[in-house]
């Protein structure tokens, strides 16, 4: 523990030893301009660096014909090979009002160590370059600016390049869509390029375009490229264009958009400086492509094959079948591959030239793209079942398409595929499964004389053998009488239980009710005893029970111990003429003197006692 603390002190000391010399390091100031010469319509970067300090104040420069735009200040601390250094850098954009030679005088910088000055800087301002032609006609909203393209000097433009401008209806025309942003322009795309105009549809674009850089004229551009396809749906000549919504990040004080790369200083092309020193505002723009004339031709009617399904392009057909050794009733999978270039969405399954002796099923299809938008192959798989035993070949299939290059229809016909039909012994083929034996968990295999039964839907699960329990009608459970009665009984039971529970809860929380119940129960018990003593003409027992009854009832009522209640308590708390006092007194006298009551007195006492105690 002690060692650890010592080590920390040692490190701190070393750090201080390295820092202290730097505090007394020499303070120097330098100023540099990014270029020695620049056009009057552009700006140069002035960088003022103060070495040896971490803060500085620079007096604003005033030079005739020049404007200085402060762009921020950054401090930097380095620790290299044990040497600590600090610096502070300020950035200015320098703008000239006219051509000519200029000199930036020595710049005075105030720091904690005093004042330092830089050396003067000489530079030339030359004639303006060609002005960019940004067509910024408002689109009406006043917020979004429309950038119509074609001019390489623009900030951003959209270029649409179809492979051809004349196509047939339904033909797929590959198209390249490119959006150009001049280097230095930061932009966010708010939408994918959208087709404007009628008569064509554009295939769905990928969300992630290909990114590249390209030189157009003397400017470098970032290019986003989508490769898609246009498909004509309406015959005639149509005017098309494309639009794209974007947000450009523009410098606040610039008159026109200027690329940051114009300074020719790769250091300041760094995104850190761009974001650190830059002062930007967002501008919503709609970039539109030049208008494009495209013609959609109608397909010729002459020579159109019956099997033509609308496929346009250049296709090849490959057909194979497996297995080639089959028996009657066996399925053969026919795989037909249509490959090439064209509108695969209209490529339908090739047609069997002959169907006799075969039963065909609905085919499945899968399109496998080959990189390009309109190139690939479509694979169809169709099941065929041999219905006859004398078949020798899988029939030929035909596929027709329109070739836009030659302007004619073409039909591809595959060669028939020879097959080897094997004889199957009748015994193996048509032995019907006995119905009783075929019963398995209520299902019956439908195999009786399969060669005679032509099923429309052979894939259906077999019939059920057991009819099961019959219902009179298809009514839901809740509509059935017994269920309704059951629910009613259930509800009544629950209501009853709820009533009892509530009553119990009320009783549990009410001491008065509990006391009344206890009093009632005790009174009933004593009444029975009194009745027994009365019948046995047992005067002493009668009086003892009567006194106990009085004590119990009054004890519960007065919330005192029943056995502790005496005649004095009764006389004190009950009216003087109370029968209870008389009976209690008689009971006491009987206990101490052995005085007994006659039958008539006992009866009177019993009646009065019951009445009084009930009314308590």
């Amino acid at each position: 523990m002690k060692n650890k603390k010592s080590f920390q002190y040692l490190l701190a000391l070393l750090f201080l030893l390295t820092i202290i010399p730097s505090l007394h390091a020499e303070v120097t100031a330098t100023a540099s301009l990014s270029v020695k010469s620049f056009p009057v319509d552009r700006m140069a970067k002035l960088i003022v660096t103060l070495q040896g300090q971490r803060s500085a104040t620079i007096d604003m420069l005033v030079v005739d014909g020049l404007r200085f735009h402060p762009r921020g200040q950054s401090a930097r601390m380095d620790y290299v090979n044990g040497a600590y250094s600090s610096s502070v850098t300020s950035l200015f954009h320098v703008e000239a009002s006219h051509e000519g030679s200029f000199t930036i005088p020595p710049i005075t910088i105030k720091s904690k160590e005093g004042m330092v000055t830089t050396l003067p800087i000489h530079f030339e301002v030359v004639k303006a370059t060609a002005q960019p032609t940004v067509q910024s006609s408002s689109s009406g909203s006043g917020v979004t600016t429309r950038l119509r393209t074609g001019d390489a000097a623009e900030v951003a433009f959209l270029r649409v390049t179809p492979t051809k401008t004349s196509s047939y209806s339904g033909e797929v025309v590959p198209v390249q869509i490119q959006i150009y942003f001049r280097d230095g322009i930061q932009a966010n795309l708010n939408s994918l390029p959208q087709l404007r105009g009628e008569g064509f549809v554009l295939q769905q674009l990928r969300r992630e375009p290909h990114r590249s850089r390209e030189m157009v004229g003397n400017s470098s551009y970032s290019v986003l490229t989508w490769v898609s396809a246009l498909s004509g749906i309406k015959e005639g000549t149509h005017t098309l264009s494309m639009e794209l919504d974007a947000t450009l990040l523009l410098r606040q004080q610039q008159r026109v958009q200027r690329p940051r790369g114009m300074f020719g200083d790769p250091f300041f092309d760094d995104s850190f400086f761009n974001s650190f020193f830059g002062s930007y505002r967002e501008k919503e723009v709609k970039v539109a492509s030049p208008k494009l004339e495209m013609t959609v031709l109608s397909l010729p009617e002459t020579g159109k094959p019956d099997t033509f399904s609308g496929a346009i392009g250049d296709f090849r057909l490959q057909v194979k079948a497996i297995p080639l050794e089959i028996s009657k009733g066996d399925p053969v999978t026919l795989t037909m591959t249509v490959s090439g270039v064209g509108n695969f969405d209209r490529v339908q399954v090739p047609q069997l030239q002959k169907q006799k002796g075969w039963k065909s099923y609905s085919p499945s299809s899968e399109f496998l793209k080959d990189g390009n938008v309109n190139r690939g192959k479509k694979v169809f798989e169709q099941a065929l079942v041999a219905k006859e035993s004398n078949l020798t070949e899988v029939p030929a299939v035909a596929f027709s398409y329109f070739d836009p290059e030659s302007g004619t229809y073409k039909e591809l016909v595959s060669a028939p595929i020879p097959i080897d039909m094997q004889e199957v012994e009748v015994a193996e083929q048509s032995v019907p499964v006995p119905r009783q034996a075929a019963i398995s968990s209520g299902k019956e295999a439908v195999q009786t004389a399969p060669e005679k039964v032509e099923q429309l839907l052979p894939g259906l699960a077999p019939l059920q053998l057991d009819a099961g329990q019959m219902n009179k009608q298809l009514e839901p459970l809740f509509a059935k009488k017994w269920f309704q009665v059951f629910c009613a009984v259930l509800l009544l039971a629950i209501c009853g239980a709820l009533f009892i529970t509530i009553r119990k809860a009320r009783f549990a929380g009410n001491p008065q009710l509990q006391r009344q119940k206890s009093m009632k129960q005790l009174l009933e018990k004593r009444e029975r005893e009194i009745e027994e003593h009365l019948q046995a003409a047992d005067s002493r027992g009668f009086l003892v029970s009567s006194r106990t009854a009085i004590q119990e009832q009054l004890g519960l009522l007065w919330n005192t111990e029943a056995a502790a209640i005496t005649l004095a308590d009764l006389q004190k708390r009950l009216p003087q003429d109370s029968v209870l006092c008389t009976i209690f007194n008689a009971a006491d006298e009987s206990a101490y003197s052995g005085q007994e009551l006659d039958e008539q007195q006992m009866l009177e006492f019993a009646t009065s006692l019951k009445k009084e105690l009930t009314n308590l």
Partner: protein
Amino acid sequence: MIHSKGYWQIFSLFGIFLLLGSFSVQAADNRFKKATIAYNDGEYQLAIEGFESLARDGLSSALLYNLANSYAQNGQTGMAILNYERAARLAPGDSDIRGNLELLRKERTLFQEEQTVSQRFIRLLGLDLWTILATAGFILFATCLLFPVTPRLKTTTRRLVAAASVLVIMASVMGIAGQYHHYHDAVVVGGDAKLRLSPFASAAASGSIQEGRLLTPVKVHNNYTLIKDESGRSGWLDNDEFMFIAY
């Protein structure tokens, strides 16, 4: 003696009833078997007649399923789907019914709209099973709160079980509501059913509706019913062109 005679008469009567009942069941079994054999022999019309005559006496999922199979093989898609749907109401979990129904729909290109998660949830169970589940949940809920079954069952546990029961009840009520919403659905059985703009024979047709399509009746006017199909299309349809699944 008189008593023994009376008993004998009662027993005889009971025996006669049992005998008649067994004859009736045997006769129904024979008709069912005959219809099944007709189906296996490819005599689908005969099989339909046999199963239909049995269906007039009573219904079961197996009978409706066999009837549906017969209709399907006979090319009567609408009637086949109608009977598969009816069979599915009696036995919602039967894989053969569901499988054949799906196959038939696929073969006849009667593709259904993709179901949402809630629709799939509702179709997890049939109307009756949802009802049973709701009832069971209700009984459990009431039992937990009203009858402390054992003193050892803590109040917290009972409340948790009660809360779970409430969830079951809520889910079941959702299931019941969803199933009941489609309880009065119907199936197009006419081969060339036309949707009309108004409920009159002279009204212009707004389109045709495929045989076997499910539809929901909205209101009735004379011999026409305003219906809405699975894709949301609506129009007036002749009452003879469709049949209700429930009857």
